[in-house]
């Protein structure tokens, strides 16, 4: 039998592409290439990474939406100026505006005009009911700099002093409720993420251990013919790194596709806090954490299990 050197390792290629290939494709090792349990481990990891990536993406964008919304909300004040017999409307407005202009930490201050007021009130009063003769208060929308916010108490005092009927409304009543809502939604998203992450870790751990039990005989034989613990652990880890990465990347791809599809489906308006759906483009890279974490869990589980198995063995 003339033996050609055809059992040379086909993965002997070097370089980055070689590295990538050897991460994803099973190189010839002493561990079994993905058999029945290997395949199902890959699929379980893929499915869990899919779920985890979806949740992670959703939590990320909800969290970000809640954050920006919270700071927007907290950065907004309103000054109300009630009509007063002691001062005419325009003087009241000028006095308050000059106070605002002098106060550090205020970004913009803009009196709401008739149009704004109409838009605000029409849903409640009925179309055409907001007429010029309605004795509405004047409202000034104030945006403050969240980095160096003004002294609220001082500002409220100054405004009240500047003109009769002027009042700083810090939206306290609304803010309390809305901030609470935003915080709840963000917590919810992170809570769901935590549950899914914990479940993913549990499933990957147990799937890995199940996969290893199929390889127990291999580990035992290697041990008995004199392989060092570190050699065995390295081989097993590499095997599970392959399985984990392969599964993780499949799951990642599926979830990215889902986000893209949802993004394109046109429903991309934001609904309350929930961005429906589609992930902001700059958040996609974060999803890579999911397969990496899954592989890490698989590798660590494999390592711990193998060492524990080997320790029992003498």
């Amino acid at each position, binding site marked *: 039998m003339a033996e050609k050197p055809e059992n040379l390792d086909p993965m002997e290629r070097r370089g980055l592409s070689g590295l990538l290939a050897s991460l994803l494709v099973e190189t010839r090792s002493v561990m079994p290439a993905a058999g029945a349990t290997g395949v199902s481990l890959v699929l379980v990891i893929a499915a869990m990474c899919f779920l985890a990536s979806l949740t992670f993406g959703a939590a990320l964008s909800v969290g970000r939406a809640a954050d920006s919304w919270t700071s927007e909300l907290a950065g907004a004040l309103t000054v109300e100026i009630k009509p007063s017999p002691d001062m005419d409307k325009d003087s009241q407005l000028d006095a308050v505006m000059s106070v605002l202009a002098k106060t550090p930490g205020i970004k913009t201050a803009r009196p709401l005009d008739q149009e704004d007021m109409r838009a605000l009130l029409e849903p409640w009063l009925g179309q055409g009911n907001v007429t010029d003769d309605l004795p509405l208060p004047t409202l000034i929308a104030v945006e403050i700099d969240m980095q160096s916010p003004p002294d609220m108490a001082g500002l409220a005092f100054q405004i009240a002093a500047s003109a009769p009927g002027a009042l700083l409304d810090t939206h306290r009543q609304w803010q309390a409720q809305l901030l609470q809502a935003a915080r709840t939604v963000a917590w919810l998203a992170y809570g769901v993420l935590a549950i899914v992450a914990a479940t993913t870790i549990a499933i990957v751990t147990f799937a890995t251990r199940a996969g290893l039990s199929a390889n127990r005989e291999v580990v035992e034989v290697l*041990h008995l013919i*004199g392989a060092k613990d570190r050699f065995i652990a390295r081989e097993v880890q590499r095997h599970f790194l392959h399985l984990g990465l392969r599964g993780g990347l499949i799951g990642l791809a599926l979830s990215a596709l889902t986000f893209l599809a949802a993004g394109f489906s046109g429903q991309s308006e934001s609904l309350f806090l929930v961005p429906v759906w589609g992930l902001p483009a700059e958040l996609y890279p974060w999803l890579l954490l999911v397969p990496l974490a899954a592989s890490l869990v698989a590798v660590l589980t494999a390592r711990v299990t193998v060492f524990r198995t080997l320790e029992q063995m003498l």
Partner: protein
Amino acid sequence: MHQNGKRCGGGRDELGFFHDSVAFMIRFENVGMRYGMGPEVLRDVSFHLAPGSFHFLTGPSGAGKTSLLKLMFLASRPSRGLITMFGRDIATLPHHELPAIRRRIGVVFQEFRLLDHLTTYENVALPLKIQGRTEDSYRDDVHELLHWVGLGERMKARPPTLSGGEKQRAAIARAVVGQPDLLLADEPTGNVDPEMGQRLLRLFVELNRLGTSVLIATHDHALVEAAGAPELMLHNGGLSVRG
């Protein structure tokens, strides 16, 4: 245990082949062994094997031959007594030194224990691969050995597609490929025909001539007679020696 003929090496042996210059390769003193809470499978077993010796281990089915071999290839611990391998007390040996000792021992398991996902060639080459040797350095040797045991044609087959006797021969090839200092073979001819059995015996004798101590557990009287080597006999957990 006493010397017998040429192959059963003397107590104090100065063969340069051996890594340690100790008198005994293996020494058992009052060794007892039990599985879990069960009865003692081995009782007060005491013997020693010199480097370069050749012995058979016999005894009725269930007498404890495999259990005794397991102690020697460091797969289980005795429940009492002292075992010295290559001059080292294995009870006090640190964990990280065990692989080095295991590499000096070749084992033919009674149940073969080939790895189903590797080819026959890869299975046989495994002990060499584990020692970190490159494939180029051993490919020809492994091929030659496989041809010798009659597996030249089945080199690329995986164990599940081998016949019973073919598996057994692959297991033997894996045990001897590294020219170990000690060869432990558990029923190595139970699944091959008498002609092949004789051929395999020649392999063991050849190995022994090159310096390997050989211990073969077997039921095959023809084999024992053909080799004419001394016999350790297990009976009711106790060991006696013949020859």
